């Protein structure tokens, strides 16, 4: 890690009653990285994101953003510091238009924009995420692909330094996936750090700089995609066997 990590997680654990959803997870994310998070269903990935942004208060552990601790802070304060997430199952404000949805992020995110300034930013983000033509449509009339883009647009409007994308490619067809990947790369190129949970391992492997693998709430591997997909523990977690066959021989 050349410079100070943007996000630093140590000994993060999350317990729900008798269930230990996260068990002493630790990792660092460098500024400008695309950091993938993968793992079988129920591995604790969304729980991890919820803890990072303050939607859940972790049972134990430290989370630092640019060196300052954010664990235990409420969600809206973490957003103010520059860490924003999208939701795996989209949560649009259905009675609002696309533009109004994105405005919520612009008004109350870390930028706290108002008036013409906010309107300009919202317009720009709608362009970038390909939603300009649907700007005044009620959110309840959008397709699933458009809703996913709305989630991202809204989060972007909150002006994050680090964006946590939770399965943004779920339910997308192959061409939509390519568009999403291209968007993610362009976001990183403009200075954002990206964490992404994804089930489409192929997609994540192609775009990530490093990948974290979780299973049963524990970190079982971390590193460049090529290494991770060959890791026998990772393979057996996904396939349930002890084949030494790598997931993606060509990776």
């Amino acid at each position: 890690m050349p410079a100070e990590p943007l996000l630093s997680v140590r000994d993060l654990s999350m317990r729900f009653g008798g269930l230990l959803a996260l068990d002493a997870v630790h990792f660092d994310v460098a500024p400008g990285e695309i950091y993938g998070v993968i793992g079988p269903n129920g591995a604790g990935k969304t729980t991890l994101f919820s803890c990072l942004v303050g939607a859940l208060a972790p049972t134990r552990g430290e989370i630092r953003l640019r060196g300052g601790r954010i664990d235990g802070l409420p969600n809206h304060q973490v957003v103010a510091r520059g860490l924003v997430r999208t939701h795996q199952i989209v949560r649009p404000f259905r009675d609002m238009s696309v533009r109004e949805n994105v405005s919520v992020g612009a008004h109350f995110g870390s930028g706290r924009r108002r008036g013409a300034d906010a309107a300009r930013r919202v317009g720009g983000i709608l362009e970038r995420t390909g939603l300009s033509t649907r700007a005044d449509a009620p959110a309840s009339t959008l397709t699933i692909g458009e809703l996913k883009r709305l989630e991202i647009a809204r989060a972007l409007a909150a002006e994050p330094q680090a964006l946590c994308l939770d399965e943004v490619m779920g339910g997308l067809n192959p061409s939509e996936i390519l568009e999403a990947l291209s968007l993610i790369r362009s976001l990183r190129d403009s200075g954002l750090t990206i964490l992404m949970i994804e089930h489409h391992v192929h997609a994540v492997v192609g775009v990530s700089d490093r990948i974290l693998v979780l299973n049963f709430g524990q970190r079982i591997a971390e590193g460049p995609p090529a290494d991770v997909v060959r890791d026998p523990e990772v393979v057996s977690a996904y396939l349930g066997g002890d084949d030494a066959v790598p997931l993606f021989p060509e990776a």
Partner: protein
Amino acid sequence: MKRLPAASGLAATAFLLAAPLFLDRGTLNDLWSLSLGVILASAWNLLGGFAGQVSLGYSAFLGIGAYTTVLLSLRGVPPFLTLPLGALLAALFSVAIGLPAFRLRGPYFTIATIGVGEAVRVSAASVAFTGGSSGLRMPSGSFDFTANFYAMAALAIFSVVLAAAVRASAFGTALAAIRQDIDAAESLGVNATRYKLLAHALSAAVVALAGSLYAINFQYIAPGSVFDFRLSLSIVLMPVVGGVGTIAGPVLGALVFSTLQIKLLAIPALRDAYLLLYGGLLILVILYEPGGLVGLLRRLTTRRQATAPEQEVPDAG
């Protein structure tokens, strides 16, 4: 169509300003009651309609305003000067309740407010300082109905304008986001608790101002009248029947209810049927047109526009 609200607002303002000049006292009384309804309904709507937090304890704020005015007037303070203090006390009380209560969601919050409203009423009726259950009377002095009427009308117009201003502001957007999906709102930086408290305090202050004017107008208040649960419920019914969450809804609802009140009082046999009417209206609205009168009007006048084909929106997780 967009100019209609502003135009009708101006017309209504002009009408109210001129009213005492040409209307008889009886009609002016009715307009006074209508104004009261508009104030209470519009104020409640800030928290209940915009933010979606249903409180059934708003009579507490009316009572706080009323009692502050009477108690201070009895100690020599000119009545109109007591208004700001009543509003402030109500706002502070709303924050005191809100801090714990807003940690509750949906129906639990509503029940908590029922409890608070009742606790306040029972306390006021049991404590000698507030005159106990027999209430208090304003000090005898010259009561200027016209001044009170103008104050009430001005407050009514103010509350509608306030609602419109809130709705158009970022604050209003936050409230709408809170109503639709509070967790998603928080995930975008909205401090939900702060905005709920603010909406609560603002509406409490306005309701308290109405309470003060109420005390000045009727000269006599008692816990049974100003802290009554039935008052809390009519404060909720007006915006719900008129169209919860809209600007015109509370006004329409107030119009419907004061008309009902006037007509009902005229027919002896129906005088006690107000519960049936309120309850029946509530049931009908929820069953058939949850958008209230405003929703009904919108449905009747909007022509279907061609939009993108509707897709299935998955439920929020």
